């Protein structure tokens, strides 16, 4: 009996084929969950809306601005926040925990493709229906909160790339964290820590300019600011061309570091998994 020949395309084209197939599958599947997705989006939007109202109230009380931002600018910040948030949803450590517990991982390890490709492709595909569902919510928010916007074409282009950079960064760091499940089932605690740090240092809670100086400095040395603050800034702030492109470069750098970290942990994780099995 002879082996099946490989498809004629090279490895890279085959990989692209896999990504496209998975993206298409993910879109199909997500459209089946319209109602649940809407519920989730509504819950998700509550977070920035609350911050928006609080800071706008303070701004209005304090003569129009707080931290140099007007209520309209806060509105712009947090509405763009919701779009960035929709785009940076990734496979969480809880997902890794379930994957290992339910034995799914064994099935994936039997295949000649690294599971991370599946996660990357799947969540990327999911974005299409998610953003479509999200758009009406964005319209409502805009009508209610009157954001002030001033965008250039370059800013839009950089934003479009930056949201994917945010997606990649979060994917690799959260997946690296998820691999800790190979050693302990209590990865939830670590993840809570991660989310708290992200909340404070990424611009998820407030624009980083409202944070004290030392926090802003610290944020430069961590990957978090590139997952929320930079994409939002690209659209909302008035960044120079160098800052915009430099930001993309920083995202690339942090992504590479993330890939390195993930690959390293993966090697040890697999060694451990195949030692004790499932």
């Amino acid at each position, binding site marked *: *009996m002879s*082996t*099946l*020949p*490989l*498809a*004629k*395309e090279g490895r890279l084209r*085959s990989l692209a*084929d*896999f990504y496209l*197939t*998975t993206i298409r*599958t993910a879109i*199909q*599947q997500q459209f*089946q969950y319209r109602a649940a997705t809407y519920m989730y989006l509504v819950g998700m939007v509550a977070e920035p809306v609350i911050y928006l109202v609080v800071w706008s109230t303070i701004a209005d009380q304090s003569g129009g601005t707080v931290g140099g931002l007007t209520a309209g600018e806060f509105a712009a910040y947090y509405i763009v926040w919701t779009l960035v948030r929709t785009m940076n949803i990734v496979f969480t450590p809880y997902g890794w925990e379930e994957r290992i517990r339910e*034995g*799914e991982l*064994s*099935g994936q*390890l*039997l*295949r*000649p*493709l690294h599971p991370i490709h599946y996660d990357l492709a799947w969540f990327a595909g999911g974005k299409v229906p998610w953003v479509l569902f999200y758009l009406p919510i964005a319209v409502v928010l805009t009508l209610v909160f009157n954001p002030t916007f001033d965008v250039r074409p370059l800013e839009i282009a950089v934003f479009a790339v930056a949201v994917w950079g945010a997606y990649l960064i979060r994917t690799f760091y959260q997946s690296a964290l998820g691999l800790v499940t190979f050693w302990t089932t209590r990865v939830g605690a670590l993840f809570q820590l991660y989310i708290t740090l992200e909340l404070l240092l990424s611009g998820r809670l407030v624009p980083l300019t409202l944070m004290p100086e030392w926090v802003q400095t610290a944020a430069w040395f961590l990957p978090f600011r590139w997952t929320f603050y930079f994409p939002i800034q690209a659209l909302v702030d008035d960044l120079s061309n160098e800052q915009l492109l430099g930001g993309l470069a920083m995202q690339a750098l942090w992504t590479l570091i993330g890939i390195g970290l993930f690959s390293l942990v993966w090697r040890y994780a697999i*060694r451990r998994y*195949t*030692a*004790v*099995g*499932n």
Partner: protein
Amino acid sequence: MNDAVVHVAELRKTFDVPEREAGLKAATKGLVRRKTKEVRAVDGISFDIAPGEIVGFLGPNGAGKTTTLKMLSGLLYVSSGDAQVLGHVPSKRERDFLRRIALVMGNRNQLQWDLPALDSFELNRSIYRIPREHFLRNRDELVELLEVGDLVKKPVRQLSLGERMKVEIVGSLLHQPQVLFLDEPTIGLDVTMQKRIREFVAEYRQRHGATVMLTSHYMADVEALCERVIVIHHGKILFDGKLGALSNTFAAWKTITAAMENGASDLSSYGEVIHRDGDLVTLRVPKADTARVTARLLAEQAVLDLNVEDPPIEDVIELVFAQENRS
């Protein structure tokens, strides 16, 4: 042995299992220092499987069957010994190796839950880099062989257990693997479905010359499919050979089932009475004595009907394990 598809030599797999007693004190002590016990799941087994063979792996729970399959498919790395499949070392999980094997586990599903199986097949096509013409041909052939039909168009979650098993098998074989590891493939299925799957495996092997390693609890699986049986218990191989030879090696007896006119009579002088159901009595008799005992029975008792059989394989296996446990 270079042309063996599966080559296993002195294969061992040991696990360190944490041991803990009940009670708060032990639990606190356990936080600081973990006591572990070494469990030998597979304890020095050796065998070779030639291309195209169907081998049945038989043994009770915890015997080491699934552990062996997992080592051969690369999911577990070996503690010591040699394992080679198609010339590859499984634990290296090389792409070329993974493309040529398939591991189908009883009730684990690898297909997308909410979508028709057809969509999951496309995913597999791209993962295994199957050329389109081959993919379509394999898919249609498998769908036909398993009589799956339009089930592939329904979301997997809407299928019954048996139907799901069938589409899972289709998905697992699209890449035409040369080696098939089947771990309890018929578990939880009804009798008709079990028969269907057995027939399929036989047909598939016939058509493609694949090598099959099958583990099962159900003797019917093994009897229907496997020419060769490996019996494993406590991680050791007890028997490796033809199925028919199994009873010859281990069971040097036959069973005589007699329908008596007066069932009340005591037949223990003829042999070991292993079953009594009204007028039907089953005796276990050493093989060599079968003819003599039969003659005596017919002469001395009022026998309406008499049947001489080899013991059922289950009984043989059970006896083998019982002996092992005692020793």
